[in-house]
Structures are given as structure tokens and as C-alpha cells.
């Protein structure tokens, strides 16, 4: 290669991105495993027992990272979708489509871990606090995106329609969060709040950060795997796909 600069736009084509993604996936799985191992060890063995909440609080090391990831993935998904819409780039839209199920999973895990935290602590499976409620609505936004794309047969129309949903969602997420927080502060009935997390010790913060990184690497690995499957499905009529070993077999 005489030209040292990488032409990034070369990878905007599904044909060139497919092998690149294939090479990157093992790297991200490794990173996810590494971060996860250290993170879990920190969370469950190193971080001190909480004075008021005992050992049960440790679920925060799953709950908080999954919440962060669910919101982060939504932003990234909306970004890819916007790029796909404005630049008419198929691959960008495929990335958005690939990210959605992982984001939805993160939101779902966040809701479940929130419930598991609430039950032993306050005796209820569900707490209507602002963050959990917003998380629930974010979960519905993910489901809406996925359902819309699944219902539209024409892939290009599905891409563009999904992009509009994602963009409208991104604008509304802050509004929804604000309104739910407002609602929550006015109805001070239950004073339980998952916001009342234990005072943060450095090891706890590290634990959450490492778990977040682990989930981030996992999400990238999953998204890349999924986007390869989407590429194969949508480009199945092209020559380069028909030439692939995994397709010829």
C-alpha cells in the first residue's frame, strides 16, 4: 500500500466492511472478557460491604452499567440511523438495526436488576422512581424501533422509517426523563429511590466503570456479529456474497 492514509470511506461499503468486522469481533470479545473478569472480581470480592444494605447492594454493579449502556447505545443507534438517512448509506442503517436488540437487552437487564434490588431492600418488585420509569419507556422506544423495522418489508424504507423513529426518540428521551422526574418529585409517597445508592467508595466506582467497559465491548462485539448477519441477508443477491466460503458451503 503506497498510500499510508487509510481511506475510511472504503469501509462504507458492506463488501469491504464484512471482512473487517469479522477480524475485529474476536478482539472485542477478548476485551469484554478481560474487563468483565476484573470488574466482577472488584464488584463481588473487593468492594466493601455496605453498612445499611449489606451484600445485596452489589447488584448495582450490573444495574448501573446496564442503564448507562442502554442510553449510550440509543444515542449511537440514533447517530448511525441519522447518518444512514442523510448520506443514504446502507451500512450505517444496518449498524443501527444491529445495535437495537443489544440496547433493548441492556434496558431489559436494567429493569430486572432494578427489580431484584428493590425486592430485598424495600419489599416491592417494582419502584416507580424516575430512573426506572424512564428506563421502562426507553425499553418501549427500543421495542417500537425494532417492531417498525420488522413490519416493513422493503429494507430501504425500513431503514429510513427507523431513522425517523430513532431521531424522534432521541429528542424525546430528555423530555420524557424530565417529565418523569417532575412527576416523581411531586408524588413523594414512596420515599424509596434507587437514586439513594450507597455512598461511593473508589473501589465501587472502579467496579462500575469496569463493568460498563465490559458491557461496551460486549455490545460492540454483538453489534458487529449481528451486522455481518444483516449484511449477508440483505446483500445475498450480490456476487461477493455468493463467493464467500460460509455461503458456498
Amino acid at each position, binding site marked *: 500500500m503506497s498510500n499510508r492514509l487509510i481511506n475510511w470511506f472504503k469501509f462504507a461499503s458492506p463488501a469491504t466492511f464484512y471482512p473487517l468486522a469479522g477480524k475485529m469481533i474476536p478482539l472485542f470479545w477478548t476485551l469484554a472478557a478481560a474487563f468483565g473478569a476484573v470488574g466482577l472480581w472488584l464488584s463481588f470480592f473487593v468492594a466493601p460491604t455496605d453498612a445499611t444494605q449489606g451484600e445485596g447492594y452489589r447488584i448495582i454493579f450490573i444495574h448501573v452499567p446496564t442503564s448507562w449502556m442502554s442510553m449510550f447505545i440509543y444515542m449511537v443507534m440514533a447517530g448511525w440511523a441519522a447518518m444512514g438517512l442523510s448520506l*443514504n448509506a446502507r451500512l450505517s442503517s444496518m449498524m443501527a438495526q444491529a445495535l437495537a436488540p443489544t440496547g433493548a437487552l441492556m434496558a431489559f437487564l436494567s429493569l430486572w436488576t432494578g427489580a431484584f434490588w428493590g425486592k430485598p431492600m424495600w419489599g416491592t418488585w417494582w419502584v416507580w422512581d424516575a430512573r426506572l420509569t424512564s428506563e421502562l419507556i426507553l425499553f418501549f422506544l427500543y421495542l417500537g424501533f425494532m417492531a417498525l423495522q420488522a413490519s416493513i*418489508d*422493503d*429494507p430501504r424504507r425500513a431503514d429510513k422509517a427507523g431513522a425517523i423513529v430513532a431521531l424522534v426518540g432521541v429528542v424525546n428521551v430528555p423530555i420524557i426523563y424530565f417529565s418523569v422526574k417532575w412527576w416523581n418529585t411531586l408524588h413523594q409517597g414512596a420515599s424509596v429511590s434507587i437514586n439513594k445508592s450507597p455512598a461511593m467508595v473508589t473501589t465501587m466506582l472502579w467496579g462500575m466503570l469496569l463493568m460498563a467497559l465490559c458491557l461496551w465491548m460486549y455490545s460492540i462485539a454483538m453489534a458487529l456479529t449481528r451486522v455481518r448477519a444483516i449484511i449477508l441477508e*440483505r446483500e*445475498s*443477491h450480490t456476487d461477493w456474497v455468493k463467493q464467500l466460503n460460509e455461503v458456498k458451503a
Partner: protein
Amino acid sequence: MLSAHGLTCVRGDRRLFAQLDLGVSPGEWLHVRGENGAGKTSLLRLLAGLSQPAEGEIRWCGQPIKASDSTYRQNLLFFGHHGALKEDLTALENLGFSAAMDGATFAEAEALKALYQFGLKGREELPVRVLSAGQKRRVMLARLALRKAPLWVLDEPFTALDVKAVDLLSRLITDHVAGGGMAVLTSHQTMPIPGGRVVQL
């Protein structure tokens, strides 16, 4: 004045046509021919600006037509497969609404004259729902006559027309083209309109 270069149309994962060039100048009309599924309707919808081509460009008077280009749309009259009539409104009301959308002033007397000319006398106050298929198409003819647009893009305009109406429409198009207008049509029938080039898909 209407030109297209390198048009490629993809529907789903089928490539209907690729690198198509065409052009229409005042006083000309194009007859788009092809088998069912060849992409005639898709081509016309591209020309109308309803869909975007996978590749290629369409220009009106040298300017590319973009989705929000109202200059092109002021000069365009497009009829697709559907009748584009509201069934619950009368023929007259439908024409009035079309005029409002086109930004034209609606002269009721002129509209009535057009409707009578196409054999709808006595039916202009009835909801379109009770008209026959052929009569509904005749309302479309009235709109063609009323709206003074230079470019006509018509998809299967002769469908459901009886012999007399075919004659009326052919004469409309002939006069339009002779007067410096342009037209792009699809039709399975041979049309009794002089001149015209064929675009085969």
C-alpha cells in the same frame, strides 16, 4: 426540457433498469413501453419526484429536481394508477380541491365546462363514489384540461376508458403536445397520437 441521465432503479433487491437516459423537449412526447414488472411505473414515479433513483439524475431546464423543488412541481401534472379522487366528494369539489393544492384560482364555470365536455353533465354534484369507473377517469380528463401544466406524466391513462373517451384523451394529448407541451406516457395499447418516441424498458 426534462432530461435524465444514468437512471438506475432498484426495487427491493431487483434492479429494474440501469443507466437509462432520456429527454423530452417542448412539442415532444415519450411512450414508455415494457412488459409487466419492467419498471414503467417506477420510472414515471422517479420522473415525478416521488422516489429517488439509486443512481443518476433528473433535470428540469437544467436544474436537478429535488424532493422539495416547487418550480418543477408547478409545471408537472402526474397521474398514477389510482384515480386520485375522494369518493365522498363530488366531482366539482374534487376539482376545486386540486386547484387549491395547485395554487391556482378555481373558476367554477370553467370546471363545469370541462366536466360537461367530458360527458359528465348532470353528474357533477354527485359523490364520485356513485360514478362508474369510466366516469371517474373522465373527471381526471377534466383536471388534465383545466390545469395548465407543460409536462404531463401519465401512468396508464387509457385504462377503463371507452372508445369515445380514448378519442377525447388522445386529442387532448395531441393538442397539448402541438401547443408546445410535453408528455411521458405508459400504455399497453398503441396510441393514435402522432409523433412520439419510444422508450423501451
